[in-house]
């Protein structure tokens, strides 16, 4: 999911940097209202970073790791939820070269924006008694959409005339399947938090009284 240096053409790299920078600027402005929850950003970022270190081997020679954007969106909302993913992706890129510096804009767009928004929206829209299902769907949808976006980005960067026709089915298909695991982990973490510390859940509604 982390696009390395060399996969994106300059136009795609530049365009995704612009979109992510604009979102970041808007998110930082909206943060002023959410300062009280700012202390949750660092521990969540540390947890997501560590969880991403665990590569789960799958039969057939594919691997995946938890991404965590949807979880961040569910716990912190669309603006504050951007921050843990920003921290994780910055450290991964700068310290470990996991994800290219030219692709940082695209990686932020996929994992810190699209994944976060999908998780937040699915959780928010779920009825009060179905919040855990909403968390599962958020994790699944977030990964599938992030994979699709990643496929589009490298597809349009390809020199091949049929780039998109190759990348979109591969990326969207695989991530829609792998997203089931992301959804399950997201739902498990949200379920745990809703029982142990319901006040930590973003105003998705319905769990505050639990």
């Amino acid at each position, binding site marked *: 999911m982390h696009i390395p240096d060399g996969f994106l053409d300059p136009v795609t790299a530049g365009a995704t940097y612009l979109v992510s920078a604009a979102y970041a600027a808007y998110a930082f402005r909206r943060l002023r209202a959410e300062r009280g929850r700012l202390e949750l950003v660092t521990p969540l970022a*540390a947890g997501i970073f560590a969880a991403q270190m665990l590569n789960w*081997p799958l039969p057939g020679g594919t691997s995946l790791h938890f991404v965590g954007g949807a979880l961040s969106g569910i716990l912190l909302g669309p603006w504050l939820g951007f921050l843990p993913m920003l921290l994780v992706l910055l450290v991964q890129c700068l*310290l470990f070269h996991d994800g290219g510096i030219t692709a940082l804009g695209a990686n932020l767009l996929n994992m810190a924006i699209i994944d976060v928004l999908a998780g937040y929206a699915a959780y928010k829209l779920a009825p009060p008694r179905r919040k855990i299902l909403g968390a599962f769907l958020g994790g699944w949808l977030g990964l599938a959409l992030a994979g699709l976006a990643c496929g589009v980005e490298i597809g349009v960067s390809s020199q091949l005339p049929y780039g998109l026709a190759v990348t979109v089915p591969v*990326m969207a298909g695989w991530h829609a399947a792998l997203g089931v695991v992301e959804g399950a982990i997201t739902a498990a973490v949200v379920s745990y938090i809703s029982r142990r510390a319901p006040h930590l859940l973003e105003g998705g509604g319905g769990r505050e009284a639990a």
Partner: protein
Amino acid sequence: MKLRKAYLAVAVLLAASPLFLVLSDMVGYREPLDLAAELLGLKDLSEEVNWTPFFDYTVPGLPPALGYAVAGAIGVAAVVLLGEALRRVLK
């Protein structure tokens, strides 16, 4: 107090990480992105333009499995430092 628990969970994940490195190497770590890139003939330039001694979660001089966990701890420390700096700026 809840936050301390979160860091305990982080430590557990890091301690378990070498096992996952070994397991995923056994099946041949391969993300869907690698698959798509191969079909397109895209070239990963990471190794050629590398700037960090901790490339791909290794630590110079340490065996890969141990280096992986140590790199993870270094990464968590960096996330925490950066996160706390950001919090001060935004407060």
